């Protein structure tokens, strides 16, 4: 039976190609291995073509795989403007972790739009929410060996949170189960980097 104290809702979002679904599966399998009931929803139909990708993970006896309005415990955004787009899922206690490197839509001009400055996004999120963690994901990923480890940097940042219900060990075990062993060391390093950034903030 669902119990709000023991439940945890994770909303992950970004742009197609950033490794969002893989990251979500890693978390979901780790939850399963720790004995939790977990369901997940993924929207990825046309995502490879630069569209928005989002996943919703619900740990703790839920039947539906969609998080209700304002019900996310954590929002993990792989792109700053996507963090803002996800705010319908946030409440005042939601932890908002986001990668500060923007992906600017090529259609900006066609629709006469402008991309908001990242500084502005960060400051205004801080003005409205208590737990906001900007992460220089691209920089840390490249330091770990490749931009492709961006998702692991953000995964590390997510699990560093005090409220995160799963252990780092089980996340790492699940990562190893899901990613090519050639890249385990790089990805471990990326997880550590993301983890430490949030722990030290």
């Amino acid at each position, binding site marked *: 039976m669902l119990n709000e104290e023991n439940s945890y809702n994770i909303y992950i979002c970004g742009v197609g190609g950033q490794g969002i679904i893989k990251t979500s599966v890693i978390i*979901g399998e780790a939850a399963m291995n720790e004995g939790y009931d977990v369901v997940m929803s993924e929207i990825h139909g046309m995502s490879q073509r630069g*569209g928005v990708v989002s996943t919703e993970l619900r740990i703790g006896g839920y039947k539906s795989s969609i998080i209700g309005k304002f019900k996310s415990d954590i929002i993990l955004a792989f792109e700053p403007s996507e963090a803002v787009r996800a705010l319908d899922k946030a409440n005042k206690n939601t932890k908002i972790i986001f990668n500060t490197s923007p992906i600017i839509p090529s259609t*900006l001009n066609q*629709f006469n739009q402008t991309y908001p400055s990242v500084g502005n996004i960060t400051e205004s999120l801080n003005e409205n929410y208590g737990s906001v963690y900007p992460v220089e994901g691209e920089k840390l990923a490249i330091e770990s060996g490749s*931009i492709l480890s961006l998702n692991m940097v953000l995964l590390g940042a997510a699990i560093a949170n005090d409220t995160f219900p799963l252990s780092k060990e089980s996340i790492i075990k699940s990562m190893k189960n*899901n990613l090519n062993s050639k890249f385990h060391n790089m990805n471990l390093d990326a997880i550590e980097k993301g983890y430490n950034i949030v722990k030290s903030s």
Partner: protein
Amino acid sequence: MDLNQLVNGKSGDKEFLLGNEAAVRGAIEAGVSVAATYPGTPSSEIGNILSFLAKDAGLFFEFSINEKVAMEVAASSAASGLKSFTFMKHVGLNVASDSFLTAVYTGTPGGMVVLSADDPSMFSSQNEQDNRHYARLANCPVLEPSNPQEVKDMMKYGYELSKKFSIPVILRTTTRISHMRGVVELGDVEITNNKTDDSNSINFGKNVHWEKGFFKKNPKQFVPVPENSMVMHEKLVSKMEDIEELANNSDLNFIFNSFENIDSENIKPKSKYGIISSGSAFNYAYDVVVEDNLANLGFDILKLGFTYPFPKDLALDFIEGLDGIFVVEEVDPIMEKEILAIIGEIGIDIPVFGKLDGTFPLIHEFNSDIVRDSINKVINSSINTIDNINNCNNCNNSNNINNSNNNINNCNNSNKINNSNNNSSNYNNSNKINNSNNGNNDLNINKRLKDIKDNLPSRPPTLCPGCSHRATYFGVRRAAEELNISNENLIFSSDIGCYTLGVSPPYETTDYLLSMGSSIGDACGFSVATNQYIVSFIGDSTFFHGGIPPLINGVHNKHKFVVTILDNRTTAMTGGQPNPGLPVDGMGDQAPEISIEEIAKACGCEFVEIINPMNLNKTIDTYKRALEYEGVSVIIAKYPCTLIKGLKRKRPMVIKEDKCNNCQNCVTTLACPAISIVDGKVEIDDLLCKGCTVCVQMCDEKAIGVKKDI
């Protein structure tokens, strides 16, 4: 997740599976021998996984040319005594329907499940049709799972049912079930001996790993000429009566009437309400009942998994004594009409709250918020026996729900309703209600953040960097310009695939679209009905799927239009499955590559040219000649999709700042994701750029070149 576990996993193992992965495991557990599909989201992964696992699983799998052919492959296999599986997106069943409706008559003695993946809210589809209607049209049973575990279990049960009654069974999923992940406990694989190594078999040594069936001739059963069909239909109706009995007693249908949170000591519900639901809608209804503790208000849930033939007796038992019935279902009010028919037939007077009276929305998928808001509309206006409720003014007279429809929006955001619930001492868990109703308030963010949120740039899917379709679209536009053909005089008829994205600015190369393969058929119609220029676009896979018959039609009937076959060497939109234009089949083996050029010629087309669309001058020239050609001209724009793995990476482009006059034509007319404006200047992202050179060719200032220092 190791996909091999879908074959090798032992009974009792737990895996975190996608609904579509669970469907594969279900097929394997059931002992399916033959599976066929045409890829379509949200069902695509099933085919991808079967393609990968078919040999290990000991079954045959193919990507058929279209859903109709896939349906035929499955039906004749089942007629030969094998368990067969076909699956498709909801609109795929339209394509397959011609064969499907008759396969229900002839029967499927081996057992056959048709998985229909519906797409409420149209995440990746042209409509959101409700395929439960097909069951009524065809007279066949429907199972509706609510999570991956049920997908697997119902697959297995579907084969039992199908085999027992020799009738195809529809397994109806929706996007949120197909693309939902959940914990699935595996079961036994029923048949493990369907691999064959019989050296006497005619297939010995060939690429076959499945046991062969045998087709026993029986024209009365399998040849639906009218005298046979009349008997078949009669038998079918009688079968469905028997199956309804099964549905009434099925384990897949059950009642939730004791929720842990209910405090029966303190709460004596004054009314009793029933929710009838299925599929993903059930999940939302269940979570709302638990979170809002609606059980204290007397809410029970009848969850239906075996939804057609509708379990009438069970539903009647459930609704007896209720004060109101909520029917929670996605997309069309189908079960609601069943319920209304039952209570009308019996002559009892119970209000039914569903889609028909406006309680629930008639379109799009549900979520917990929608279900909660919809239920609240009713309980706040008609369950007003609870103490201290300050009736929402707008809802005062809403006992007649029809009158309240216009007030729905007003009520949704009413703080009065939220506050009044909190004041009610009858609510045991008022904090929860408080929390959930906060969901109806606005975001509560300051103006600065609200401004950013309101003005976020949109992020529509676009053609990938390096996609050859961009060059083709640019070329056809330029050719029309050079021939002085106005945009109004040029109709673009398009099809289903990535290239449909050409509908957006700046290309705007989709003016008309119906379905898979329709671009050429539509062009035939335009050619007869107008004197305009017509260019149709169709992908390589879609051409094989449904494009060949209308092409023949166009030539034979002397129509005039340009067909562009965008041959990007894969079925790109659904994730890169093979099609007959490639030298590989669905099991990864070598296969004869069918030449699109030769087919077009064989269809009678005399103007057939292959171009590399990345060569802009040649592309423009070819389109000019094609547009002036009297008859059906075919241009095959051949260039591999940039998402194909293992393609050699080319050097990226760079803006030569000394030559760039910042006209931004490359940004506005190409709209390549790799080119964007940063601080007022054009920049090319060398991580995204695939080195296709189209921007180099179109830049009048010669201000774009190959980046050397990388």
